[in-house]
């Protein structure tokens, strides 16, 4: 089930949209950053899988905060379009930093290969099950965080209305930094999960960004459970498309899904609420 791997970055994307109100396409490069951070932790430093995932989360999260502060925040007042273009340019910059350091060759993690499981005649890769578990765990964690904790409530307040939230004494900038950390961190985890399933290279993030965006839009931008639902939906749609189209057209599925959704039901399946 390829959709499961889209779920975690889609949650990050939706969360950032929900609070900051703009689709941050630089997610693509942070996904790649996380994947490579995990690679360095795993193949370079010999850390086990779980620790490497944590490293991926932290490194991508920090990169997200820094890149937002330095590049995107000053441009936010120039409007969403300029910010979107800057985010794409930022993705190019970060992707090439990775390419500079690691080159273009495909790399794999240093983990034992596991046999596919056979369940009722259907082959399921254990990695994909693990991805789904991580996705659901991330969803529950973020959901609970937003609904139960004070900081989560602050984030929802900022998502509703930054001006009113700051009147109440909530530091909007801090909330923005936090959501960038978590959102980009999740993207990094997603990158590592993709790498665990296949391999990684500087273009890992860019290849999936359209599908991640599609997952978030289909589920409803800003909705966390929507992101997971959307990811599974897009994953299923991509697999089904193989019945008619050549495998290379999978990205076209995401493209079509975004078009259809935004034209027919812009709110997405679960609507634009962060909880």
């Amino acid at each position, binding site marked *: 089930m390829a959709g499961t791997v889209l779920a975690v970055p889609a949650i990050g994307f939706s969360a950032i949209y929900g609070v900051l109100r703009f689709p941050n396409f630089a997610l693509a490069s942070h996904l790649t950053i996380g994947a490579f951070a995990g690679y360095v932790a795993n193949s370079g430093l010999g850390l086990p899988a779980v620790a490497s995932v944590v490293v991926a989360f932290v490194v991508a999260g920090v990169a997200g905060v820094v890149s937002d502060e330095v590049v995107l925040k000053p441009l936010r007042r120039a409007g969403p379009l300029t910010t*979107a273009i800057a985010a794409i340019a930022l993705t*190019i910059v970060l992707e090439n930093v990775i390419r500079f350091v690691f080159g273009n060759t495909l790399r794999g993690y240093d983990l034992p290969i596991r046999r596919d499981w056979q369940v009722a005649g259907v082959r399921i890769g254990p990695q994909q099950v693990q991805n789904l578990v991580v996705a659901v765990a991330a969803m529950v964690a973020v959901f609970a965080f937003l609904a139960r904790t004070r900081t989560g409530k602050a984030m929802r307040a900022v998502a509703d209305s930054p001006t009113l939230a700051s009147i109440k004494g909530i530091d909007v900038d801090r909330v923005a930094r936090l959501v960038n950390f978590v959102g980009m961190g999740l993207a990094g985890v997603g990158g590592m999960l993709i790498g665990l399933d296949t391999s990684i290279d500087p273009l890992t993030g860019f290849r999936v960004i*359209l599908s991640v*965006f599609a997952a978030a839009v289909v589920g409803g931008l800003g909705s966390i459970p929507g992101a997971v639902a959307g990811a599974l939906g897009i994953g299923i749609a991509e697999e089904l498309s193989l019945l008619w189209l050549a495998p290379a057209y999978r990205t076209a599925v995401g493209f079509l899904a975004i*078009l259809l959704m935004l034209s027919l039901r812009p709110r997405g399946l679960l609507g634009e609420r962060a909880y």
Partner: protein
Amino acid sequence: MATFAGLYALMALGLNLIWGMAGMINLGLVGFFAVGAYVSALATRKLGAPIPLGVAAAFLIAAVAGVLMALITARLRGDYLAIITLGFSEVVRLTASNEIWLTNGTDGISGIPGPWRGRVTPETFNVISLVIVAAVVAIVLAVMQRVRHSPYGRVLRAMRDDDQVASVAGKHVAGFKVEAFALSAGILGVAGALYAHYTSFIAPDMFTPLISIYVVLALTAGGTGNNWGAVAGGALVVFFMESTRFATGWLPQLEPVQVAAVRELLIGASLILVLRFRPSGLLPERIVRVEPESPLPRT
């Protein structure tokens, strides 16, 4: 090199029509460029058509693609439009890679005829190509300047600034949007056709989204909304790319992939810097102020 500057200038002019004047972002530029290149290449290579006919076909088919794109993205907001148009250019590239029966797939199409190629020396061929490209740029620039100062140009700018107001004023906004997209796409298609005939070889992997970003950089740095800015920007970007090639000669210990990475990085970084510090570009759009005729006598 100057020929490429001309091609980028041409593409920047196309982008200026749709973005600078009509206010709609199109990051799928390289998709129309690719469509134009393939149409002309196939027309001249497989159907044996003469080159001008190929270029004309490129214009038409690219314009049709532009109409399609405009129709399907009619309702999208600016930043969504950005990623959707980018997705469109990727779909074009994937189609070119996969429909081998049409496009030869990743092998590409080679041996595309060029104007008088083979009958003159390579240097003369380069000069001829430069002259042709320069002539096309001059024609398109002249047309664009006419458009800009015409009522049509004013409608486009009105749409850009606030399309609800333009609609209330009775302008058929949707129709104009489609038209602008089609014309802009057609210009990009012509640029693609010229590229194909100049370089004689095209392949899907050449048409990456990075090229669209180069064109955006060209227009933004040169001056969005200003046609001369588009031309200046095209020259700037090519100059920039060539100078990075020189600069990396000073860093001999880098491998080719690293050199390429540095170049792309600089392009991305430059775009961010221009957006941040001089978003109006080198030659900003000149706002023409019209003083209304006062019915009252000046006292």
